């Protein structure tokens, strides 16, 4: 038992919420090996945080036994807590204490001898690059810096086991990459064992071993390559000239034997069911000029394949939307030298871009890059400090109700009335946009059918699973058939399957001529956009199509760069420019 870092034997844990019992972990048994990085991967609600807290001795299981570093976590939680380092989701920092004071506090609490501190602090500061900021209050650090300080605080007394609960959420890709480097250094230099949870599937490939969880159950455990291998020979890329990639994806995803169809630039990535060869005549009957090629399997392909067979996913109902007639060169949104200051702080610094009708336009960037501020100005929720902006020819801050009626808005975190039922929410939002009588009734029916919300009509919005909250929020924004759609972080925290459904619906809207402006911090979602801007520190780093952006990051060593590679390259270029 003592040769494993963590052992769980038939551990179950459930919570009571609003009178209902929710199983967070359902009889999970696993063993985690020491001296390596183990990734705990799964969408929101998979039970990752509950598992972390159980291991840290913060929660007691309903059933089962937990051993951490050979110590029984049920009977000796204090001993466990003395030998692990744990970073909770929001890093556990005191915003009103400085970097140094936060470190001092955790050094005191962890009992680091005073004479050893100077050397340890220096090493941590050098490792995290926080050296120049020791006097700054933690609340004034950027997301990436907070994350590194949180990590430094858990590492003040080199623990034998490091538990990191979603350390990379909402942090920019460069900081994420740096965090991984620090983590691996701990494993190599101090022989530390690391358990790290994440909802980013691309991070799975960075782990030595991966534990896959979904809805409180263990789906599998193994090396990332093992997972990818399970879908080997089933991944393909298909492209066709003369049709839009969205149309292509929509058709392919309905073809028999196709588990997953994902837009990747101008092409569509396919995952086939086991034992089914993709045949062009079955995939796209009647379509000419098709290219089909096999591609390397990825972890995400395996994950989706596993989940889809688990859930037995049906087809996704698509949105029928009254087609908007338009002129393709019509600029619907125009932003010129837009600036927003909060006191001394410049949240958005002289940005310019324009969005054409029927386009999906993305604002990409880490938390704090200025995406949401830009968004709020466009929606008229926040006045601009300077610059010009027009949405369908209006500044929405001063526009009439009828001009506002042409846009739909889906706010961050799916702002719904949590104690109203699904039906009541829909009815409210539709009447807020002036729908009534027969028309309202029709749209309500449409929303319930299209978004498959009928079984939940009477359920309170607050009790819905996150993916359904997203659907409901999306439906509410579409009740009045807007021409322009603003989506603020629509996929945050939602599992990959729900994200796919969401994008399928958004694609259908764009095909119908609706203009979509979307913010996201998932780099790979850039592939769904026609064009996008990448933002950092309130500035636009670049504007263009995802293909061009990725191509600009192409090097000899990395012939097929991802959006994340492109982003990191842009940030590095900018930092060098600042240094120069």
């Amino acid at each position, binding site marked *: 038992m003592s040769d494993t870092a963590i052992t769980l034997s038939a551990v179950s844990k459930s919570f009571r919420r609003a009178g209902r019992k929710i199983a967070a972990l359902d009889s999970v048994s696993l063993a985690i090996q020491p001296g390596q990085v183990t990734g705990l991967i799964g969408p929101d609600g998979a039970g990752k945080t509950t598992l972390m807290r159980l291991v840290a001795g913060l929660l007691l299981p309903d059933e089962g036994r937990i051993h951490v570093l050979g110590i029984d976590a049920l009977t000796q*939680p*204090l001993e466990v*807590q003395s030998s692990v380092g*744990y970073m909770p989701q929001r890093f556990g*920092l005191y915003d009103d*204490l400085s970097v140094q*004071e936060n470190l001092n506090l955790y050094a*005191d*609490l962890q009992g680091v001898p005073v004479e050893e501190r100077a050397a340890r602090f220096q090493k941590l500061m050098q490792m995290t690059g926080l050296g120049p900021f020791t006097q700054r209050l933690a609340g004034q650090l950027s997301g990436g810096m907070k994350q590194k300080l949180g990590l430094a605080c858990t590492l003040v007394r080199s623990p034998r086991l490091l538990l990191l609960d979603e350390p990379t959420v909402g942090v920019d890709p460069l900081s994420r990459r740096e965090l991984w480097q620090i983590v691996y250094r701990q494993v190599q230099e101090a022989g530390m064992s690391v358990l790290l949870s994440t909802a980013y599937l691309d991070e799975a490939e960075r782990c030595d071993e991966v534990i896959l969880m979904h809805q409180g159950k263990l789906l599998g455990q193994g090396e990332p390559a093992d997972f990818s291998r399970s879908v080997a020979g089933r991944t393909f890329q298909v492209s066709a000239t003369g049709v839009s990639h969205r149309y292509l994806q929509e058709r392919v995803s309905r073809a028999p034997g196709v588990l997953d169809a994902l837009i990747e630039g101008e092409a569509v990535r396919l995952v086939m069911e086991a034992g089914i060869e993709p045949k062009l005549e079955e995939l796209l009957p009647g379509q000419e000029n098709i290219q089909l090629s096999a591609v390397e399997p990825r972890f995400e392909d395996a994950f989706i394949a596993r989940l889809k067979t688990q859930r037995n996913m049906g087809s996704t109902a698509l949105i029928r939307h009254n087609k908007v007639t338009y002129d393709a060169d019509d600029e619907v949104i125009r932003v010129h030298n837009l600036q927003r200051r909060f006191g001394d702080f410049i949240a958005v610094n002289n940005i310019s871009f324009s969005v054409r009708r029927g386009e999906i336009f993305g604002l990409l960037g880490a938390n704090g890059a200025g995406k949401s501020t830009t968004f709020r100005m466009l929606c008229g929720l926040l006045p601009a400090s300077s610059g010009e902006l027009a949405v369908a020819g209006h500044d929405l801050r001063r526009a009439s109700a009828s001009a506002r009626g042409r846009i739909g808005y889906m706010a961050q975190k799916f702002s719904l009335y949590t104690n109203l039922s699904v039906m009541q929410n829909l009815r409210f939002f539709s009447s807020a946009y002036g729908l009534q009588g027969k028309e309202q009734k029709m749209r309500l029916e449409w929303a319930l059918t299209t978004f498959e919300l009928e079984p939940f009509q009477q359920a309170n919005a607050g009790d819905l699973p996150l993916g359904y909250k997203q659907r409901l929020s999306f439906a509410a924004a579409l009740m009045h058939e807007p021409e322009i759609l603003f989506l603020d972080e629509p996929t945050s925290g939602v599992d990959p399957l729900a994200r796919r459904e969401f994008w399928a619906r958004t694609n259908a809207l764009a095909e119908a001529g609706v203009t979509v402006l979307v913010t996201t911090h998932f780099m790979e979602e850039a592939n769904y956009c026609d064009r996008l801007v990448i933002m950092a520190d309130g500035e636009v780093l670049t504007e263009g199509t995802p293909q061009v952006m990725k191509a600009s990051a192409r090097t000899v060593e990395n012939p097929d760069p991802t959006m994340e590679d492109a982003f990191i390259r842009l940030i590095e270029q900018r930092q060098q420019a600042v240094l120069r």
Partner: protein
Amino acid sequence: MKALSRMRLLGMIRKESLQILRDPSSISIAFVLPVVLLFLFGYGVSLDAKLIPVGIVIEQPDTTTQSLAGAFEQSEFFQPYHFDSIQMAQQMLNERHIDGILWMRSNFSSNLLTGSEAPIGVIINGVDSNQANITQGYIQGTWLAWLSRYAESRGQPLPIPVSLEQRVWFNAALSSRLFLVPGLIAIIMTMIGSLLTALVVAREWERGTMEALMVTPLRIGEMLAGKLIPYFVLGMAGMLFSVALAVWQFDVPLRGSFWLLMVSSALFMLVALSIGMLISIVSKNQFVAGQLAIVVTFLPAFILSGFLFDINSMPDWVQVITHLVPARYFVAILQTLFLAGDVWLVVLSNMGALLIMFLFFFTLVWRKSHKHLE
């Protein structure tokens, strides 16, 4: 393993103190709030009747009515306004410009001279019953004083069989400020002890820092002590500041021993802190904790402690409830120590009650605190 670690405890205290110093709301609750409350209650609120506006209607002026009106003019309790007709005076009473009317009819002086009954009409606005009672009493007193002087001047002493020789102890001038200001210290300490503590602990839950603290070798005892000690010091500092203001700014005498005041305040502070901790453990959310602290500690301290309203004049069942309000015991101690002196029986019995409350709440806090999230 069970022993407290000095390093961890000091680390917690240092962190908590830094947070207090950097948080403008902690400092203002401890030092600005006392000033505001003390000035408001010391100068603004007065339960004494002074310069009550009254209307005087004299239908036929002569020397007798002039001398009675003069008695009201000279009284420090009244601010008389003269009206020619009762209708005008009534109008002013309706519009709440005056609180009462003194009405001498045209036959007042002649009746008085001939020795027949000479009634004075007195109309009082009874909306505020307390104020009305006081006004009535003062009018009667002023009238009686005038009457005996009047009789004396005519060589016929008024036959009053029993006369009262009154002495008011402890607050000879019956100034409500002397009575309010000491009680106010209990309110201020309740705010610091319960409201502030409830808010800061709930904030740790909300921001997720509690979770990080729990997965350190920190013991429950160290965590509680690390939270209680800085806020205890802050509360006592606020208390000393209020006492200094009371004594030097508001001239409230401190007749009892200063050290007894300190010891009993410390005891009350511990009760308030325990309640604050308990609230934050139960609610774990700043908004709820704040609401609870106000409803459970601040409002009862204000209304049911005897600070503003006399407990003996409350209905019996409310009086029973006041025994559950810790501020009740502390207000009694404060008023005794400030105005009467070291009356040991009063001070010790109330301190005993506070001690029991402290032990009760602290045991609850200890039992409810554990290093789990549920």
